[in-house]
């Protein structure tokens, strides 16, 4: 990875930076799966902008990454995979049978939080903090259609314990041009006030 810091805005503006982001997420997800829960990634497939629908699997954890603009990230797991991740992740701790489902969901929330928290170090800009929301969990397979200006990136991860898909949803270029116009107006006002 290059030393030049990524910005959330550039991820939305340029496909190249969007690709860097999803590659970083895919890489960190695979290393998390291997190091924390001993699950091997067999194959990773990337899709950029060819998807119009989010096809959510059995359990999905979602977080919002907030800079000047917001990115939404979703980790969607097949039942078998998240249950196996939970089994390994909770090894050695006691969980009552009637609480297992809550802890499976918590595991999905922890995983997206750790992966994205770690990946955000690639986005460092001096003096700036990028915020991550607490995870939200969605149960059950659902599909969500694409909002007209947004862009979807997706990563299909196939492991020896089942499948997962990661979606990155950006708000689209209209929002960026709106932000840029806003900034330009601010700069112009500032210049005007100085003259």
């Amino acid at each position, binding site marked *: 990875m290059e030393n030049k810091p990524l910005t959330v805005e550039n991820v939305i503006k340029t496909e190249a930076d969007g690709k860097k982001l999803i590659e970083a997420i895919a890489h960190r997800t695979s290393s*998390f799966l291997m*190091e*924390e829960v001993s699950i091997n990634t067999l194959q990773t497939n990337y899709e950029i902008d060819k998807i119009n629908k989010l096809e959510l699997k059995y359990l999905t954890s979602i977080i919002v990454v907030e800079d000047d603009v917001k990115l939404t990230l979703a980790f969607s797991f097949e039942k078998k995979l998240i249950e196996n991740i939970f089994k390994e*992740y*909770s090894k*050695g*701790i*006691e*969980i009552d049978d009637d609480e297992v489902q*809550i*802890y499976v969901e*918590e*595991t999905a*929330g*922890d995983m997206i*939080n*750790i*992966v*994205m*928290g*770690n990946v*955000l*170090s690639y*986005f*460092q800009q*001096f*003096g*700036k*903090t*990028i*915020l*991550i*929301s*607490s995870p939200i969990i969605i149960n059950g397979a659902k599909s969500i259609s694409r909002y007209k200006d947004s862009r979807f990136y997706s990563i299909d991860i196939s492991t020896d314990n089942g499948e997962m898909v990661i979606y990155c949803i950006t708000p689209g270029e209209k929002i960026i041009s709106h932000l840029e116009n806003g900034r330009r107006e601010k700069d112009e006002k500032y210049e005007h006030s100085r003259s």
Partner: protein
Amino acid sequence: MEGEKKMKSMNILVVDDSLITIKKMTKMIEDIGHNVVANARSGIEAIKQYEIFKPDIVTMDITMPEMNGIEALKRIMEKDSSAIVIMVTSHGQEQMVINSVEVGAKGYLLKPLKEEQLKNCIEKVYEKYGEAK
């Protein structure tokens, strides 16, 4: 081991909005010979628990609902300037570390957490700041 000074057992408050992280942290802390006196799932709850239990050390997550970990750290430090708070978070951003240290954090650990890292951090911060408590 002979010659090795045994560390006293600490009373620790674990703050994290994730139930599974609280359970995992509690197990790690107990395995290395310390006690978890209480846990909290938000910044507001952490401040309340700190006042009740007066723990030797707090492990504090950053991203939490109601009040985040940095704000909770700030409020705890205002009430007890000798508080020993270790931030335990997935955020690898340098600015987040700087913000935490500026407000008074004594240590910073990156998730996913390893028992050895946690043990070393607790020992180091208590050795350095424990006497002031």
